[in-house]
């Protein structure tokens, strides 16, 4: 182990702001990006599933009302 104390480690020989500013931003980006990507992937899946279910229900309704006035579809 190279460092004598925690404050030594944090000070980085006077370069603390620059070193931790670099590592901190890198960590922030590399934690935020996967979180956002995963959230978006799940949102897409959920939205598409809802749209599909809605479309299927619409189709059912159409089948039931066959013979009656044909409904207007958006």
């Amino acid at each position, binding site marked *: *182990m*190279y*460092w004598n104390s925690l404050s030594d*480690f944090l000070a*980085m*020989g*006077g*370069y603390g*702001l*620059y*070193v931790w*500013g*670099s*590592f901190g*931003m*890198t960590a922030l*980006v*590399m934690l935020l*990006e*996967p979180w956002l*990507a*995963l959230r*978006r*992937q799940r949102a*897409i*899946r*959920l939205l*598409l*599933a*809802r*749209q*599909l*279910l809605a479309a299927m229900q619409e189709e059912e309704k159409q089948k039931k009302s066959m013979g009656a006035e044909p409904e207007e579809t958006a």
Partner: protein
Amino acid sequence: MMPLTHIYKFAAPAAFYPLAGRLIPWFWGLAALFGAIGLWLGLAVAPTDFQQGEGYRIIFVHVGASWMSMFIYLVMAFWAAIGLAFNTRLSGMMAAALAPTGALFAFISLWTGALWGKPMWGTWWVWDARLTSELILLFLYVGFIALTHAIDDPRRADRAGAVLALVGVVNIPIIYFSVKWWNTLHQGASVSLTRSPSMAAIMLWSMMLCALAMWMYTIAVSLIRVRGIILERERHTNWVKALLLELNP
């Protein structure tokens, strides 16, 4: 060994989607492992630099991020070329999935470079060849993302993006060789293919492991993104419908 023909099977989105899902945890695991060892060596074990003191430790994130920003662009351009040449569906999706991660690594490269430049050169930024060409790389990524999002038809968006990606690829050797071709503030390469590295073994190992961790990270996060893109674009196919109903009954 698996026969080579089996690889082509995974070029179909229906086969690639579940494969990507199975691979993602493995790449997260490798990224965490390499990152933990690399950071331990770089921040706790490696001695100080005789010229730059402790400030040199920025190298452990700066070099990996810069390499990935260039490497991801090359991979993106490769998929763009494949997509243009063979009109394969998955290629455009791969390029689109890679671009945001490439842009973020270009940003990290510039950010850590500025934080390194300030104490060592006395300035956050100079318009020198290495820095300017890296900034252009960030703009190329942003341009690619903006262009492909501005076109509604995905196949047309892929083709337009592919042309931009291929034109921009000329910038990569400019970034890489800029420190040789021009007089710049930026130091030369610490690692090269033709001569032995100009740094201590422990620092080199740490830098390599951090870069490797970023590589594994890139694969994991772009596979997550490409899965979302596949679902969006293939939503009218039977396999996606079956998958959606299975997951959300």
